[in-house]
């Protein structure tokens, strides 16, 4: 991490596509977007509905939780606690020191996570679950604003029309 922070010209992980390709991506690009007019007829979606749900609704579920846990299980955790905490802090300082655009991001995350700045890690983790919950509700607020233009179909509610 620290090494990468000192070498900002690392490989980027950017894919560019001039347009959507494949059904799932097209659905993702066009669904719930665009003008709705009043006079439209009722139509039937053939074989699209299920796919639609698959493609676009991301629900935090037990499946998600188990996937995260499974992924954690594959990590070498002896490496995580001892060696990553320090380099990561060094990385933070390097980035803010360089006046990079990432300044404030990690601080912001910490503040949200630990419910306030300035605490070190071990003090902060007592509050982490409360802070995380607060952050969670904040994010659903954002989401509802995001889908405000549409007729509904928010990710959590899974509602859809037609």
């Amino acid at each position: 991490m620290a090494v990468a922070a000192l070498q900002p010209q690392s490989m980027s992980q950017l894919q560019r596509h001039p347009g959507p390709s494949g059904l799932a991506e097209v659905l993702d690009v066009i669904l719930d977007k665009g003008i709705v007019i009043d006079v439209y007829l009722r139509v039937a979606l053939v074989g699209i509905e299920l796919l639609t749900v698959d493609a676009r609704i991301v629900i935090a579920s037990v499946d998600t939780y188990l996937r995260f846990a499974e992924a954690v299980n594959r990590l070498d955790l002896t490496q995580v606690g001892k060696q990553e905490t320090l380099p990561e802090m060094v990385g933070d300082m390097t980035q803010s020191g360089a006046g990079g655009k990432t300044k404030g991001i990690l601080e912001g995350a910490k503040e949200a996570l630990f419910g306030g700045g300035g605490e070190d890690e071990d003090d902060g983790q007592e509050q982490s679950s409360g802070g995380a919950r607060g952050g969670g509700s904040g994010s659903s607020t954002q989401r509802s604003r995001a889908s405000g233009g549409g007729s509904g179909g928010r990710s959590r509610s899974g509602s859809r029309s037609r």
Partner: protein
Amino acid sequence: MALYVYGIMRPGEARRAAEAINREARHRVQVVEGERASALVSPMAAGDLRLRRETVMAHADVLQAAFAHGPVLPLRFGIVVADADSLAREVLEGPFQQPSERLDTLDGKAEMQLKATYCEEPLLRSILAHDSALRRDAQRIQKLPPAATHFERIRLGEAIAAAVEVRQLADRAALLRALAPLAVAHAVGRPHHERAVANLSFLVRRESLARFDRAVEALSRERADEMEFKLIGPLPPYSFADGNVVLGSGAAGASWG
């Protein structure tokens, strides 16, 4: 005859778009003309108002091809009207507020959709590195057989999902801070993945597209250790057609209204 409606364009551009699309024989489209706005449509067989996989692809294809000929107001996928008369009367000339003005507003602007996704391992490592309680839980669970720790695993995963959400808030805000000033407007979409950082749409002036692309490239380099980015576009302004958008912070002097 029932018509599937793709989108609305200015009359001359709609005609040219339809000619080009039909010439390339990808899809058969027709134009329903209004005085100041026209619609691109395809006839649907009577009694068979069903939308299939092909309709989804055609919707995106037609709008994308039309977009090369001028500004387009995409209609929401799946809109079918009874006939050309009612479309002209009630939409192109009717209560729908000035489609031609919106088209003028959207002229020269395209939508860029950016999806940022956390890379799994760096994300989990970072979350665990910042939370010693989670780390201890994870280490303990790792030593036990899966069957004995099913519910603990669910709780661990839930705590991680909560930590991911906290990160999303901060990181999404950071991406917006970097990119919104380069756009006329932006919209925040639903998370596209359980490790989504953000699913963002930006309305960008054509002359700013290269600059926007460079900014995304710079972000993706800066965050290469932790995130993957997918940038789709230039697209017709799917997310900005209905005017219900969040103005970009760099929108000073923008004609969006």
